[in-house]
């Protein structure tokens, strides 16, 4: 048993902390999210330079060969500083290529992802799918030269800045069955691809993306997987574990900001933290943090090492349920204990609130994962 971060993780954490303190303060972030693209190319280049993007890419393709556990400190830092650059989307993209790609696809894509040069997003969720990963109505029709893709994907996070999409589409079969889902690599500038972009509540960029008779060559299919659903589930579990770690960092910030406020805000001639009614609530927030951190660690370890998919799913769902509850509890309490100041856009805490609110639902809310957990018993 050893819960200490490795030397390498510590170094990563320290280098991110230095970067955030210098170049990613809350004021800098405010300018970044208001900019045209909604993210900073400079910050992205710096993350690539620090090696963050290659952490979980196999060593033979220019990465460090790590897993979700190795990304824990990175994701916590992302949550703490509310970093909006698409670190998670890239980690996902790399995982798809590494898990399902052909040797050729790995050779041509993974080094570019590790260097931060290839930007990717996962275009999967559709209208009416809610959090059901098997709900895919988009179609990939075989043509003489490859495939023609039709369909519409919703709220593709980081879609607007992606050059390449991993698109799920049904090669055969009915709309919601688990069979015959394929994955395709589609460039966003391909004819027939159109994006409608938006800013999200948590200040990321997302796109609804439609595909109208988009022609791709046969080698655009990711791997030769007849049914990619198990790959999708595996990668989304991986992403879920990572977002749990991000939540842990955001909760840590919310707690430290709230504790600071309780100690410095005075009313009735004393710090409001001297009121026992508020002390107990702060203590409960700290307990939430510890429980969430434990479950996030468990989920990261499971997506790295668990070979039985059912066991992996159970652990990831359990983690997401616990973390979603902690996200709601801590975010709501942090605003309440800040009083009016917590409602203000000026303070970082209200932005952390928004990110925690969205993380609680990202990759499935607590209800979705309770249902999945129950179905696996």
């Amino acid at each position, binding site marked *: 048993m050893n819960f200490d971060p490795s030397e390498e993780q510590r170094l990563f954490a320290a280098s991110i902390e230095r970067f955030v303190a210098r170049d990613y303060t809350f004021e800098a972030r405010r300018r970044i999210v208001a900019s045209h693209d*909604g993210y900073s190319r400079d910050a992205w280049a710096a993350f690539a330079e620090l090696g963050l993007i290659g952490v979980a890419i196999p060593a033979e393709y220019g990465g460090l060969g790590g897993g979700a556990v190795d990304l824990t400190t990175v994701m916590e830092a992302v949550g703490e500083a509310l970093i909006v650059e698409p670190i998670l989307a890239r980690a996902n993209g790399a995982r798809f290529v590494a898990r399902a790609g052909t040797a050729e696809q790995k050779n041509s894509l993974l080094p570019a992802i590790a260097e931060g040069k290839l930007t990717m997003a996962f275009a999967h969720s559709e209208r009416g799918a809610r959090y059901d990963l098997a709900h895919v109505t988009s179609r990939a029709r075989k043509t003489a030269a490859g495939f023609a893709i039709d369909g519409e994907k919703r*709220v593709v996070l980081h879609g607007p800045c992606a050059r390449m999409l991993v698109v799920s589409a049904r090669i055969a079969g009915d709309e919601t069955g688990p069979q015959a889902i394929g994955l395709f690599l589609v460039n966003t500038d391909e004819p027939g691809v159109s994006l409608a972009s938006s800013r999200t509540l948590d200040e990321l960029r*997302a796109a609804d993306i439609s595909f109208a008779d988009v022609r791709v060559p046969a080698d655009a299919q990711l791997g030769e997987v007849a049914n990619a659903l198990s790959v999708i589930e595996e990668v989304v579990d991986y992403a879920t574990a990572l977002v749990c770690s991000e939540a842990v960092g955001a909760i840590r910030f919310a707690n430290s900001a709230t504790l600071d406020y309780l100690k410095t805000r005075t009313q009735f001639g004393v710090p409001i933290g001297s009121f026992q009614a508020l002390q107990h609530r702060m203590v409960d927030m700290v307990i939430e943090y510890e429980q969430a951190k434990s479950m996030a660690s468990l989920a990261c370890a499971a997506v790295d090492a668990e070979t039985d998919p059912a066991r992996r799913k159970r652990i990831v769902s359990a983690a997401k349920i616990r973390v979603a509850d902690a996200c709601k509890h801590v975010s709501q309490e942090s*605003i309440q204990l800040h*009083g009016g100041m917590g409602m203000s*856009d000026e303070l970082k805490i209200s932005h952390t609130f928004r990110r925690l*609110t969205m993380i609680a639902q990202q990759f499935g809310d607590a*209800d979705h994962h309770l249902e999945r957990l129950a179905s696996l018993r």
Partner: protein
Amino acid sequence: MDLNYSAEERAFRDEVSDWLRDYLPADLRQKVLDYQHLTRDDLQRWHAILALKGWIAPSWPQEWGGTAWSVVQRYIFEEACGYAGAPPLLPFGLLMCAPVLFKFGTQAQKERFLRPIYNGDEFWCQGYSEPGAGSDLASLRTTAVRHGDRYVVNGQKIWTTAAHIADWIFCLVRTSPATERKQDGISFLLIDMRTSGITVRPLILMDGEHEVNEVFFDDVDVPVDNRVHEEGKGWTVAKYLLGHERMNTARIGTSQRELGRLKEFASMQSKNGKPLIDDPRFRDKVSRVEIELMALSITNLRFLDQLRGGRAPGAEVSMLKIKGTEIQQALTELMMEAAGPAAQPFAPVAGNDRFDRLMASLAPRYCNYRKTTIYAGSNEIQRNIIAKHALGL
């Protein structure tokens, strides 16, 4: 015991509902239902319709335009308006400044201010909270120094709702800096927002909305005639007003409408190929809120019944604020959850013609409603009131 309205009360409820059906403008109602921002013009339009009908100020004395309704009728009217989706009018003039003037104002003050409030010609805001004086309101530091028949006001108010659309502000200010009890040096002033030296700075909330402001006073000149009640008696006025502020916070009718909306919305969202409302996990959560609301509506009626018997409203009213706001928050949270992944978008980026504004309003609304357990005396302060005044702790 009879939990039902009397025949007369039922007839009154029907009269109000019928009238609302005929006279509440469809476009205003739609704006309320779609959670859109209401402008001053929108509020004024609805205000004028109610004023024309004679229903704008039910609780006022009859000679000033009140309706002479019983407390139960007033409650029925408020809840019917909320249920119908009528624009919620600002309380600061009609429900806060006016009762203060009736109780403490001079004849000249009544004649100057009440008619424009009734007609909706002048909007008011409330200058209470300060950066250092929130829950501990009596520690406020905005000063008013008297020079002959004028006060000179300096200081700052914060979280001032509607200051940017208001014509007047009623303010608690410190007229005596060194009193033994800090409550004693406070006075209640009516200040014209156009007076020079007043600066209004928007405070944008986390959902991007501009509802509240900071108001700065820099050597603002106020006639002594605009002081309500005696100098140093502002706290008495404020305490009187707090009772009024908390009378309508349960908002049963609005929450009942939102509950219906939630069920309708959740029946249009699908989960596992079925309507979300048929999902037992989600359905149970809706039921819990529905039960809480059902209980609160009866609790509210029980309190009203006590009031009707001539008993003064006690600290129990704080409970209506606590439960009412918790229910409002739970409803916004379930709407956001019901939207699922579609709750993420917040604002379109140029060129997006497929943007769904209703979906995109649900998560911001959830954010916005966190304010309800903070404003008008935070729910922590409400619990203190119950503990101290009702339970003697």
